[in-house]
């Protein structure tokens, strides 16, 4: 395979070399189970607890408020299902959820699952930029609302929600508020002392950390029902032998992010702006999502007359790895490969054709301006070629 420039950081970031070193240093012998009584077990437990402190520090949490999980999806599921079941256990009438229409499938499908088991869900709409309106959230809350869920920043279009206001609305009405911060942590300042979320999900592989390890912040006093069962690790909320090396690596990533996030974001923003300027100079290419309230690394581009899959593969053939703009409703599920856009762009009022014309280009701290310029050249060439191919772009291509 030819060498490639990676511009798909929203899908997963590279592993930072320093995090890799931390991970590798924990892969050496001896390995022990943190639940073991002997000294090696105790040492493994200490590694886990040190990582917990680092992760807590990154987000303004106390260590005891941080749970380690198997990833972002699991963190989201534990929060949504756990909050819902705790609420209904306390009061059987509390079977109502408020969930934004632009959630990642991890939250959306957990809510849909609850819906199929008798919960009612109010789906919160968004404006053309993908923003949830705090007043709408406030109006949607009811005495029987078990939880509300709005993500910190959208994984497709990059729009950053007014989470502080949203969380305050929920706090005032005493409704638990779950926030999926998988795309935000390590890229934006995320501080649970400022934003009164009840639970907050994130994962290492989106900010230069390990994959296969996630975290869930659970504010002191917030009740969560367990959704898995076993040895009772992680306060009984996530059983299973801890992946000590992976957890240590998440701790290392958190320490890096705490120190360097601002610098990363500055670089990401510069590269992203360069990219957006260049791309939107091509006729018929527009930026989706909010122009200002967006992730520093995200450029989501609607490309008139072109279908995203082909454009991604064209760019790939020129050495640039970018993403489709609309996550398949059934990504990764080979049997269900129907051509169906995710609900995000639909919720923003875009038609299917425009949804399918969008690509997501997400930069990283280690990309260079030269790479962006090279990409822009390849991109405009690909767009021109595909338009020439298109029966819809007649007269112009």
């Amino acid at each position, binding site marked *: 395979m030819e060498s490639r420039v990676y511009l798909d950081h929203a899908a997963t970031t590279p592993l930072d070399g320093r995090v890799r070193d931390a991970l590798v240093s924990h892969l050496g012998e001896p390995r022990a189970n943190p639940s073991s009584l002997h000294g090696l077990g105790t040492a493994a437990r200490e590694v886990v607890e040190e990582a917990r402190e680092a992760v807590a520090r990154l987000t303004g949490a106390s260590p005891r408020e941080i749970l380690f999980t198997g990833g972002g999806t699991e963190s989201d599921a534990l929060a949504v299902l756990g909050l819902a079941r705790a609420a209904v256990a306390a009061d059987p009438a509390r079977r109502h959820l408020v969930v934004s229409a632009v959630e990642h499938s991890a939250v959306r499908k957990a809510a849909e699952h609850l819906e199929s088991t008798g919960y009612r869900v109010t789906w919160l709409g968004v404006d053309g930029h993908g923003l949830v309106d705090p007043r709408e959230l406030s109006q949607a809350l009811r005495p029987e609302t078990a939880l509300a869920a709005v993500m910190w920043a959208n994984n497709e279009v990059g729009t950053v929600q007014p989470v502080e206001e949203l969380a305050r609305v929920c706090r005032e009405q005493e409704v638990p508020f779950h926030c999926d911060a998988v795309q935000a942590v390590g890229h934006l300042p995320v501080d649970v002392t400022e934003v009164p979320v009840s639970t907050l999900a994130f994962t290492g592989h989106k900010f230069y950390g390990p994959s296969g390890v996630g975290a869930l912040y659970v504010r002191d006093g917030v009740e969560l029902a367990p959704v898995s069962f076993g040895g009772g690790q992680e306060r009984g909320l996530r059983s299973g032998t801890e992946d000590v090396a992976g957890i240590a690596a998440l701790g290392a990533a958190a320490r890096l992010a705490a120190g360097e996030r601002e610098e990363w974001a500055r670089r990401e923003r510069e590269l992203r702006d360069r990219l957006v300027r260049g791309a939107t100079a091509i006729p018929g290419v527009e930026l989706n999502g909010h122009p200002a309230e967006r992730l520093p690394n995200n450029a989501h581009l609607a490309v008139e*007359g*072109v*279908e995203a*899959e*082909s454009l991604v*593969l*064209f760019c790939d*053939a020129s050495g640039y790895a970018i993403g489709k703009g609309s996550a398949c409703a059934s990504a990764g599920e*080979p*049997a*269900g*490969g*129907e*051509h169906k856009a995710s609900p995000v762009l639909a919720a923003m009022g875009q*038609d*299917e*054709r425009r949804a*399918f014309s969008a690509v997501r280009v997400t930069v990283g701290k280690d990309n260079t301006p030269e790479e962006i310029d090279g990409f822009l050249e390849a991109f405009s060439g690909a767009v021109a070629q*595909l338009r*020439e*191919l*298109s*029966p*819809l*772009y007649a007269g112009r291509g």
Partner: protein
Amino acid sequence: MSYRPQVIDHLVRPRNVGELAEPDGSGESGDAACGDIARFSVGVRENVLAEVRYKVYGCAACIAAGSALAELVEGEGLLEAARRSRADLEDALGGPLPEGKEHALTLVVDALHKAFEDYWDRLAGEVLVEGYRGADG
């Protein structure tokens, strides 16, 4: 889900892209409202498919299938070309497409067949007109 190298090759270096200025037949398939669309135009000389051009809006599989189909049939006898099936096209693309992408084969084969029908319709029209003229003249 990932494509074979043959598919990617047809995608990024598509053969026979375009539209004939004065086609002997042309056909379109697909759903203009939001789905994939394929358009073929053909030039016929002495029952041979002398020229084929295509355009596709759609997923990579559709573009590649259009390219492979155009390459496959150009220069073939008309009836031979009309008998080309989805299976032949699959072979030309190195094997089955990924699950969920099989519709690409149908899309482009349909468009080509419609171009043939258009050709025969025109031919029939001409023959009729000629016959009429002949009868008349």
